[in-house]
């Protein structure tokens, strides 16, 4: 005995009919529902009458702010003139003035602005605006991409956001890794800690190598590990400027730290 497979034609047809009926009725109902009953229009059917409430038991309403003229006090000038106040008698000042000390004592501690976190390199005067820079068009750097005898890969250029930063500039990734690693100091982690789960920190590297938007993406659960990871990245600021060939403005990095003593 073979099972008769039910054909899809019938249900599909029905579904088509029903859907068109549905959308048709939807349209009809939209038109119908807006016909005839003008809200608040004449005819009284939908009119709403509103009455002023004078006062309701238990609900204190504010007094009406009506301006009533005071019959006693008036801002217009009166007939009487008030006498001027007598001047206070001046006491002769025969006291010797306190001498000013020419050599004032310096405050003992002068707080200087921290040099650790400030960006040590202001943008140079001759900085090239974004999009107008890049390596010069000289023959020695224009070829060679994908020219290897055994590799068929050709040039793969994406605009900003090609997404293949790690592939094209793997040396830059290596550089970031080694720089941050060398700044991640064991001494900045709680000495009692032997191991911690992975901490992930994300940050952006701007065109000139400055590090921005450092934040913890995934905490390791230990505050000192998180802080030392943040510190490792902050003390790697500024990094190497982004590669000349890279057209984008900045690169986002997710950097993970596995702590184990």
């Amino acid at each position, binding site marked *: 005995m073979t099972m008769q497979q039910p054909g899809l034609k019938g249900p599909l047809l029905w579904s088509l009919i029903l859907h068109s009926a549905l959308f048709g009725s939807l349209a009809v109902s939209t038109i119908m529902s807006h016909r005839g009953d003008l809200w608040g229009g004449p005819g009284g059917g939908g009119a709403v009458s509103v009455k002023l409430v004078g006062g309701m038991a238990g609900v204190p309403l504010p007094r009406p702010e009506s301006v009533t003229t005071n019959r006693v006090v008036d801002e217009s000038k009166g007939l009487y003139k008030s006498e001027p106040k007598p001047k206070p008698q001046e006491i002769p000042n025969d006291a010797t003035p306190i001498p000013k000390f020419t050599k004032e004592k310096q405050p003992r501690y002068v707080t200087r602005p921290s040099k650790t976190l400030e960006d040590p390199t202001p943008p140079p005067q001759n900085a090239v605006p974004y999009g107008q820079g890049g390596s010069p068009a000289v023959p020695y750097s224009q070829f060679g991409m994908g020219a290897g005898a055994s590799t068929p890969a050709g040039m793969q250029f994406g605009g900003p956001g090609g997404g293949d*930063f790690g592939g094209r500039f793997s040396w830059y990734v290596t550089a970031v890794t080694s720089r941050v690693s060398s700044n991640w100091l064991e001494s900045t982690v709680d000495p009692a800690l032997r191991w911690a789960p992975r901490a*992930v920190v994300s940050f952006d590297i701007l065109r000139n190598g400055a590090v921005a938007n450092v934040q913890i993406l995934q905490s390791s659960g230990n505050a000192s590990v998180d802080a030392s990871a943040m510190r490792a990245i902050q003390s790697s600021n500024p990094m190497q400027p982004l590669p000349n060939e890279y057209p984008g403005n900045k690169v986002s990095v997710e*950097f993970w730290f*596995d702590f184990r003593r």
Partner: protein
Amino acid sequence: MRTFRPAGWRGTAACAVLYGFAFLTMAAAAPGARAQDWFRTGTGLGVNKPKVAVADFVSRNDTSTSLAALFGDVVRNDLDFSGVVEVASKSFYPTQVPSVPMELNYQAWSDPPTSAQFLAFGNLTVTGTSEEIQAWFNDVKNPSAPPVVGQVYRGDANEEQTRRFAHQFADEIIARLSGGIPGVAATQISFVSTRSGNKEIWAMDYDGANEHQLTSLHSIALTPRWSPDADRIAFTCYPTAGSILSAQICVYSTVSSRLLNWPRYRGTNSSPAWSPDGTKIMFMSSMLGNPELFISEADGSRPKRLTHSTGADTSAAWNPKTGQQVAFVSDRGGTPQLYIMDADGSEVQKVELTDKGYVIDPAWSPNGQLLAFSWRRPSGNYDLYVMDIATHALVELTRDAGRNERPSWAPDGRHMVFESTRTGTRQIWSMLADGTEVRQLTTQGQNESPNWSPK
């Protein structure tokens, strides 16, 4: 009664419209979502150094063979000593050597046994008395990637110039691979040598090549210190005043190759130290009787006393990062020990160590986090130690190898130069700051008191 459908239908229809809108907006937003490049990396136990191969540089004429070989050797040596990369052994290199990127067989270099991730290669042409070097540094694991470094150097065809170009090229590579810390291949080391008969100030390249004499005062010169802009060297000199020798501070200009005017003070004046901004010099002076630390302007004017103690205070070393702390040696407690004070003379603290003995020659690392010094513990000879300022954790760098003294940091914070008597005579040695890769730089005469130039 206008329609007779259940209330639920209206909701379903609204839902369909909403979904449609949602799809449309998502489709529109998709290009925006990938408008930002990103990559993911991380660190764990140790740092993996990228493996680098340096192919022999191809010489285009017969006359340039030796220069091409020299260029490749210097680059290889610089990279090997940089501490940033691992240089693949030359004996495993493929026989085919590229001279331009067109000839580069990526796979031959990236596969075992070379297993290199990066390759430096290029060619050298000599025309008449000038040379042209084309040098590239490519990522051989990513044939589609543009060259990491591509440079053309043009200059006089001689050994010194070729060496300088090789150092520049190596520095370029190291700067790229270390993430923004420039290499030290173009830096210099000044030191004191007796090979001309007197103790004079000498200077050499960081790898020991190109040793040359700077001063010829025919007396005694000691403790050279580069200024932060590397165009002056302050040192202790002994000008004769009548028949007596008295130690004074002298400043030598490497730009004009002569001594600059520096005032002379009473008593003994020695061991100058530049402030990180180059505007002040701290030095030991006994102009008021007891040997104390003084601070003056860079031209020696307006000396001001900083320390007040019964013992002698000397060998100041500024924190190069902040310029607000100074480590120095004092024997106020009986033996020479390390102390740290603020640059205005306040907040003097002794650096407590776990053992007794003499502690001398403090040198602050460029990032301000580590202090190197030499320490003669009761059990042994002078050896170099590095201390983490924050935790006072100690690392011993040398052991059982003669006297090791006067460490000086390279500007990258990865290298150190020092004097050692491990060969029998006093010579200059350099090493990585973890104590590995020890190399002897000088061999002639007695050489001491090295100082690494800040750039």
